């Protein structure tokens, strides 16, 4: 999948587009990547990405998986989702510019548009952040 494809999977756009590629998608989850580049909206003064950038990247990684499944099921546009809840988020360190983040999302059951998920973000194999999250995707 290319960066062009990600625009078909999620509705976010610059300056807050926080996924480069969806590497794999399965019914129960998937993996997405983001390289932290200069000019990223979430960069702090010291050139490292803020914790909130990690959270947005994780949410959009989950959204990309949901978008993949929605399009496969016949949707014509990527679903718009919102973060409903963040629980047990841990930030182990802030990513540096130039690092590639790789986030694995495991999707739990969905009820009334709310999906529970667990995610881990790694850079070069090292755990950077992990969290649980609820994503709300209103049914169109």
């Amino acid at each position, binding site marked *: 999948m290319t960066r062009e494809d990600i625009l078909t999977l999620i509705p976010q756009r610059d*300056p807050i587009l926080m996924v480069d590629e969806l590497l794999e998608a399965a019914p129960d989850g998937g993996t997405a990547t983001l390289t932290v580049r200069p000019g990223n909206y979430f960069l702090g003064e010291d050139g490292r990405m803020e914790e909130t950038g990690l959270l947005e990247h994780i949410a959009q990684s989950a959204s990309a998986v949901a978008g993949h499944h929605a399009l496969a099921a016949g949707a014509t546009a990527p679903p718009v989702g919102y973060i409903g809840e963040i*629980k047990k988020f841990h930030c182990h360190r802030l990513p540096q510019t130039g690092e590639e983040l790789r986030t694995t999302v495991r999707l739990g059951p969905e009820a009334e548009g709310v999906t529970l998920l667990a995610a881990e973000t790694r850079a070069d194999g090292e755990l950077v952040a992990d969290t649980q999250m609820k994503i709300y995707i209103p049914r169109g």
Partner: protein
Amino acid sequence: MRLEHHYYELNSMHTGGRHGRFHIALRPDCEVYRGHFPGNPVCPGVCHIQTVKELTERLTGCRLRIRSIRLCRLKAVATPSACPELCVDISLSDTDGGLLVEARMADAERTYMDFKGEMTKEDTRTE
């Protein structure tokens, strides 16, 4: 990133000890709405969390990092037109090696976010 003067303006603040009450105005012209979402401006929940972080830095006078979030509930979808002005209440207490931050973002109509997490003072040493 700095959200003050971009995402929000601070209209007033009242702080005493370990509590602060901040009145902010959301800026509808913030560039983030170009992408979130095109033609449909919705406040990113993570920008509300970042706003709480910045206001907590103002309250403590320290640069902070978010070490963990125990629970953050984004209870209503916020937009700069639906809730142009918000009140942010922040309470601090000590926790193991850091600061427990409890915050609520609300207007007269509803609560948009409840946040409970740990922040630590930024380690400015070079690694």
